[in-house]
């Protein structure tokens, strides 16, 4: 009897200890970013050109990339969710592949496809375009690595729509386009927003594919994560300031996502937030 009680107490202590270690490990780096440099100096550092340039590049490329993801990814997700055909599973897997691809491999793939000597390189040259090491390349890298997060969540959202509602809309005289905009889209809005928030967060933190495909040219292709990497050997405090900036933006995103998801308690989509990797 006593043995069992001791064992149970011991097990409880082990769990608490493990939880404490995990918590400290996760929280400490974030706290450290803010605690090393006083807030006033942090704000001052944010006004240095390397930071403002990187912020502009980051915001611009992320915004364009996300717009493209919504524009092209939504129809793709809808078709994959609503059509049944041979090879569908394979196609879904291919679409999700960039998600698990090491960023360096993603960058390599983009170079091999769209780079000067890549698969479409000759077409690009004929048209007088060279995308590699331009801002277009940043947009492409961001879109490539982050769109699977959106598409995947969007497929789940579209699949969650009661097909009887779609059928009802059709029998009430609405064509498939009207049905999509008046029934499917309103019902999946929250799921799509959640997927988009995930893709946005992933895109904002994009590092590996961007540096390989677009390089790290201040004011052109140098995004915040790339600027952090460039700055941290020269001026650690500037790197920290940018780090703090990204933490704040990511936290705002996470909170927004939480709010969006809590508005739809019955929905079955609960995407795990994938941390922006670098």
């Amino acid at each position, binding site marked *: 009897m006593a043995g069992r009680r001791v064992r149970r107490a011991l097990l409880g202590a082990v769990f608490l200890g493990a939880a404490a270690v995990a918590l400290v490990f996760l929280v400490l780096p974030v706290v450290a970013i803010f605690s090393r440099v006083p807030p006033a100096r942090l704000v001052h550092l944010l006004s240095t050109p390397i930071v403002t340039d990187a912020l502009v590049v980051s915001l611009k490329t992320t915004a364009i990339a996300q717009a493209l993801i919504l524009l092209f990814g939504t129809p793709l997700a809808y078709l994959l969710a609503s059509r049944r055909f041979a090879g569908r599973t394979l196609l879904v897997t291919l679409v999700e592949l960039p998600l698990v691809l090491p960023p360096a491999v993603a960058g390599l793939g983009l170079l091999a496809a769209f780079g000067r000597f890549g698969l479409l390189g000759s077409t690009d040259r004929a048209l007088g375009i060279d995308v590699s090491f331009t801002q277009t390349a940043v947009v492409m890298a961001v879109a490539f690595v982050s769109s699977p997060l959106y598409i995947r969540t969007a497929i789940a959202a579209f699949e969650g729509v*009661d097909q*009887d*509602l779609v*059928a*009802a*809309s*059709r*029998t*009430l*005289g*609405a*064509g498939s386009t009207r049905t999509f905009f*008046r*029934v499917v889209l*309103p*019902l999946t809005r929250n799921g799509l927003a959640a997927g988009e928030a995930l893709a946005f967060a992933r895109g904002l933190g994009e590092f590996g594919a961007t540096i390989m495909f677009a390089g790290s040219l201040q004011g052109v292709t140098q995004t915040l994560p790339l600027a952090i990497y460039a700055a941290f050997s020269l001026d650690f405090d500037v790197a920290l300031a940018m780090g703090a900036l990204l933490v704040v933006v990511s936290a705002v995103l996470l909170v927004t996502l939480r709010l969006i998801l809590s508005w739809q308690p019955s929905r079955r989509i609960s995407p795990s937030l994938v941390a922006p990797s670098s």
Partner: protein
Amino acid sequence: MATLSADFSLPRRSFELRLGLEVERTVALVGPSGAGKSSVLRAIAGLLQPSAGRVALDGETWFDADGGVDLPPDERRVGLVFQDYALFPHLSVRANVAYGGKERVDELLERFRISHLAGARPGELSGGERQRVALARALARNPGALLLDEPLAALDAHTKSGVRAELQELLSDLELPTLIVTHDYEDAVALAGTVGVLVDGELRQIGAPEELISSPLDPFVASFTGANLLHGRTVGEENGLTRVQLESGELLYSTDPGSGEVGVVVYPWDVSVGRAYPDDSALNLVSGEVVSVVQVGNRVRVRIGPLTAEVTGASAERLGLARGGTVFASFKATGTRLVPLS
């Protein structure tokens, strides 16, 4: 009045649905779940594509396999009311109704007594209210034919009888060709003048409800109309009556001709129950222990061996019917029908 004609075959997972129907007033299809009832409605509405045949409303051809016609659902003037109503959860009652057509919204809200709910979301409504919204929405597009999928199945027993009466009234007012599918024979009879029995994708019999009761062509039809179906085989004739030996040994007589394996069909309300050996004109007698006694409205359903009898509450009380007692159940040879068993 318009006529909806549906004559098609539609491959389903485990059977091929074949159907030839002319709907002028109200037709109800009854059958067990999985018989293909909903598929019939979906094929007519254009949500499923038949492999052959034709669907038309008067002169308008909606589907014709030979002619290569297959109108999309939104181009068929059909009002389909789904079993779970399929109201749009993100739209108000008014917007749901207006989705089908904007001209008659106020009139329909009033007609279905849902004006006071115009601003509510479907999630806030009771089952009966949801059905009224679904009907109003279906009618808002001015359909040429109405299809109702299990219109009463989603309602609790308490609401059901009231809604059934309302629906009856509505259907007779509308004068639209209406096809109803239901698993409940009583609902079918209450709502439709013509009832078809659909089993495994096949229309076993279609006709007036009285016709299905008086001369069922098939054991399924008999059991669906609520009849007793006693399995046996014929053992010759006697005085022009067919003698049937039941699996349990009893000998029964029927005025119906038949041979081989047959089902003896007898309705519960044609079976008399007594405590003593009856001395009357009934030729058929089954004695046995009372298995169950269940009150259904003002009637009492008594189960004696393989047989169900229906008596009034007063008779049940007078006889002191209770589980375990031995009683005699009798019915006339003229009250029986024989259906071949395959």
